[in-house]
């Protein structure tokens, strides 16, 4: 990531982002009101949550769900919804309960 411009003249014309992969620098985790809590015991590692998460916030290790990237998870609840009904390994919990 290049240094962020400190004046309007040095910004790329038209608000274009002229390098790929910069979404990682944008912490959408701030937006969350519900936090997905993943239960490793219940999880069957079908990876449905990983496929459907719009923010690539399901972290994998050796093909298994390792946890959730809370810097980028915006709490939409799609992972909990897509987790097989018989498994229900992800529970959405009020963010306020963690404070």
């Amino acid at each position, binding site marked *: 990531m290049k240094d962020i411009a400190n*004046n*309007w003249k040095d*910004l*790329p014309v*038209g*608000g*274009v982002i002229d390098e*790929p992969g910069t979404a990682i620098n944008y912490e959408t985790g701030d937006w969350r009101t519900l936090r997905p809590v993943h239960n490793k015991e219940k999880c069957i590692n079908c990876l449905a949550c990983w496929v459907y998460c719009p923010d690539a916030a399901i972290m994998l290790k050796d093909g298994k769900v390792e946890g959730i990237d809370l810097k980028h998870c915006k709490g939409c609840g799609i992972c909990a919804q897509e987790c097989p009904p018989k498994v229900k390994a992800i529970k959405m919990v009020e963010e306020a309960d963690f404070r």
Partner: protein
Amino acid sequence: MGKTRVARTGNEAMAEAIRQINPDVVAAYPITPATEVMQIFATYVADGLVDTELVPTESEHSAMSAAIGSQVAGARTMTATSSQGLALMYEMLYIAAGLRLPLIMAEVNRALSAPINIHCDHSDTMGGRDAGWIQIFSENSQEAYDNLIQAVRIAEHKDVLLPIMVTTDGFIISHAMEAMEIYDDKDVRGFIGTYKPLLPALDHRNPITVGAIDFVDYYFEHRRAVAQAMINAKDVILEVGREFGRKFGQEYGFYEAYKLDDAEVAMVCLGSTAGTGKDAIDNLRKRGIKAGLLKIRVFRPFPAEELAARLRCVPQICVLDRSDALAATGGPLFAELLAAMYEDRSEHKIINRIYGLGGRDIKVGEIEELLSAQVSAAAGGKSIDRIAYLGVRE
């Protein structure tokens, strides 16, 4: 440098300019009175006279969206519209400017509903005056043609990179045939040059993101840059106008002054009314009234300082607005000219007449009567209203 003298309507002249510009992409949806521009251009596409990809869309919102997409991809793109069509594009107009896309539009001025009306006034263009588009008005077919050719160079200039609309008055110019000169294809193409997009989205070696979210952190800085582009456009418009003059014979600036140097009263207007006005000025001069005219060609960016300097010595000014801002303060041209003249501090008397809404004709005699009434009021005769409507049944 070859020129051919021809008879063309405003729409034909604009279609001819688009043929010569030979844009990569044209995206449009038909609307009276601009339909013909694309209808004629479509025959050029069908006859293989241009290399353009013509994209007929299902609405003007889609036309502007397609044009934006195409310009983002790196293609020189044009469109044409009018009235409700331009209104339907409004959301996208701002996006085209914010993304700094040098889109080029042929706009045929027409009233906005309601009531439904297909004839000329400037309400459509005025509604988009804060959208970040450069706006250039034309008095006749020749100017519409010349302006559209210059538009390419202005919009694509590296210091500008803003969308641009060139307007004609619906039916009055768009459908009236006039003698004019067209230039050779190779000269026009030489003048406009090839388009080199700054960051084309289709360059897969340099991937970019366009239209990203920009909250309190950088939105303001990006908008500040758009404002600067519009300020920069002033020099570029003059530079391109001079170069056009050297190459094709007719130089263009921000405005045209007619018999203004010794004028005691001057009318200020946009578009075809300048033609009517010049006849009125000639008649008033024959009657011993020193009248003059200032036709504003460039409305965005608004050349405030230049207009104030040119009108400095004219004590009586009458601004003719072919649209109503419905602000209880007169028309948009009046408001902007008043602001421009305020700095000047000289003793001007500036009045406003809103005229010609929905295509209502303005006659030479009406202008003569108006300007002579202003002169006599200034000399202590019967007083006249500061802001009023001209040609309406009172």
